[in-house]
């Protein structure tokens, strides 16, 4: 067993004003060089986990308990400034929407090199050269020309490539990708996925890949956590997950995924029984948790 690079244990976050839990004791680990999928429907708390890793939770959300460690160091125990520096050097984030994820007033060159200059302290010329190399690596033709452009002059797919280049630029050991292909059309999605897979393999980066697309999970990832209502309902290797899904929710999720080799009629929405069972399960978790808390 190799040591986990990113280790989240028993993480609970809640809305400040109501106390409703958004994450219910989430634990997951990503080993160096491993691709871990975080699967779940909208609102399951996938992005909340990503935000918790980077310490950018919305103001209305507080961490109740649990730890996030990177290289064995507890992030929540660090001061704001120390945490930023620590994480800026080790981890990068690929956001969901390439249309708003690039700063509209900055040239592409600066979008990539700013991080290198300001966080890693690289000299300007070197950062510029590195940006060019990376753009080449994400298969952008004529990088020197593209580097002088503004984001609005690029297509969605090109922008996502730039974001990927920017994420890998600082040679981070961990990348968190928050549904990086959802905003793109299907043909571009495939290219971007192949690109991320290739980059990840070449750089040996640990990747936490957030998605609701099980097809992507099968192609890209080694291990997976299935999230429902802020609770990990199943966590296993990807082969295992598809061969023998343990949790009823995982099976329902698979049954609801369109596949070209099955007729459309076989698509099934979640049954009322399942929804009831899930609700009970969540309620049980909450009662248990409340009890534990009461006992200190």
């Amino acid at each position, binding site marked *: 067993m190799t040591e986990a690079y990113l280790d989240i244990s028993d993480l609970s976050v809640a809305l400040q004003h109501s106390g409703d839990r958004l994450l219910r004791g989430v634990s997951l680990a990503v080993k160096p060089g491993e691709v871990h999928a975080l699967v779940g429907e909208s609102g399951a708390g996938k992005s909340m986990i990503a935000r918790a890793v980077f310490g950018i939770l919305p*103001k209305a959300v507080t961490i109740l308990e649990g730890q996030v460690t990177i290289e064995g160091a507890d992030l929540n125990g660090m001061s704001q400034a120390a945490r930023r520096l620590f994480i800026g050097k080790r981890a990068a984030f690929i956001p969901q929407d390439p249309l708003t994820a690039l700063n509209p007033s900055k040239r592409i060159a600066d979008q990539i090199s700013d991080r290198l200059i300001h966080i890693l302290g690289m000299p300007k010329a070197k950062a510029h050269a590195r940006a060019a190399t990376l753009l080449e690596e994400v298969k952008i033709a004529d990088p020197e020309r593209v580097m002088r452009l503004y984001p609005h002059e690029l297509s969605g797919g090109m922008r996502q490539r730039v974001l990927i280049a920017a994420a890998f630029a600082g040679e981070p050991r961990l990348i968190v990708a928050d549904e990086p292909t959802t905003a793109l059309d299907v043909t571009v999605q495939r290219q971007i996925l192949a690109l991320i897979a290739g980059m990840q393999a070449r750089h040996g980066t640990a990747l936490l890949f957030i998605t609701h697309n099980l097809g992507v999970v099968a192609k890209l990832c080694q291990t997976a956590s299935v999230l429902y209502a802020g609770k990990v309902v199943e966590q296993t290797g990807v082969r295992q997950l598809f061969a023998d899904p343990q949790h009823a929710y995982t099976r329902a999720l698979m049954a609801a995924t369109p596949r070209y080799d099955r007729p459309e009629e076989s698509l099934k929405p979640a049954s009322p029984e399942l929804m009831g069972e899930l609700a009970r399960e969540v309620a049980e978790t909450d009662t248990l948790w409340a009890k534990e808390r009461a006992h200190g």
Partner: protein
Amino acid sequence: MAEARVIRVKAGPRLWLSGLWLTFFALAAIFAPLIVPHDPLAQDLMLGKLPPAWVTGHEPGYLLGTDSLGRDVLSRLISAARPALFVAIGAGLAACLLGSVLGLLAGFFGGWTDRIISRIVDIWMAFPPVLLSILLVAFLNPSLQSVIIAIAIIDWTRFCRVVRAETMQQRRMDYVESARAMGLTSIATLAREVLPNVLPAIIVLLSLEMGIAVIVEAILSYVNLSVSTDQATWGSMIAEGRGIIYQAWWVLVFPMIALFLTVLAFSQFGEGLKERFDPVLR
């Protein structure tokens, strides 16, 4: 790339015409003592109410005529550009700085910061601005500095409101989140990532505000609450011209035209700049 260039250069006559007038205005203000044909304060009652050069009864050398005290209107018009420019720049920048900083903070941090700043703005905007400026100047003793301070204190809310809204809009974009995720501090994110995107709006407002400052100064000198009477201003010229409008319309009309053109030029210049420098060309 080439296409983008072409669009940017097309910014058009708006920018050039208004820029031309503002350059003209600024040069007149700066070199006023050197270029005035007559001493703007020299009185000659024998030459009172002379009409402009194209009206019968004019005297050579008095291109735009004279006022009731025989002072040269053109010279006074030029020398009045000075306080106008001074107020435009001073009050414009001061209001811009105060309002933009507060607007950026309110829009970026939200929560209590926003609530406090926004309430102050609401209360501020409930005061009638002209009355407030008259009160302020009277309290501070009439002078050019007081006029600048009064305008900045009243008009920072314009900047604050717009900059706050723009900042909030930018704040929601993923690039801000990415910047935070990569380890930039809030203030660095605000200054390096958000500010450049709000800047076009600030520049437009600044230009607009400079025009407003010129008008407010004119209003204040119209009611004799600006600079002392030994300095000509457009407002005081309009006030003097009002009493003799039936005998000598030119004393009133020329400063009005100068005022009108300057204020129009400021607002059009702002719009032109926005078209030219906004990278997204909204």
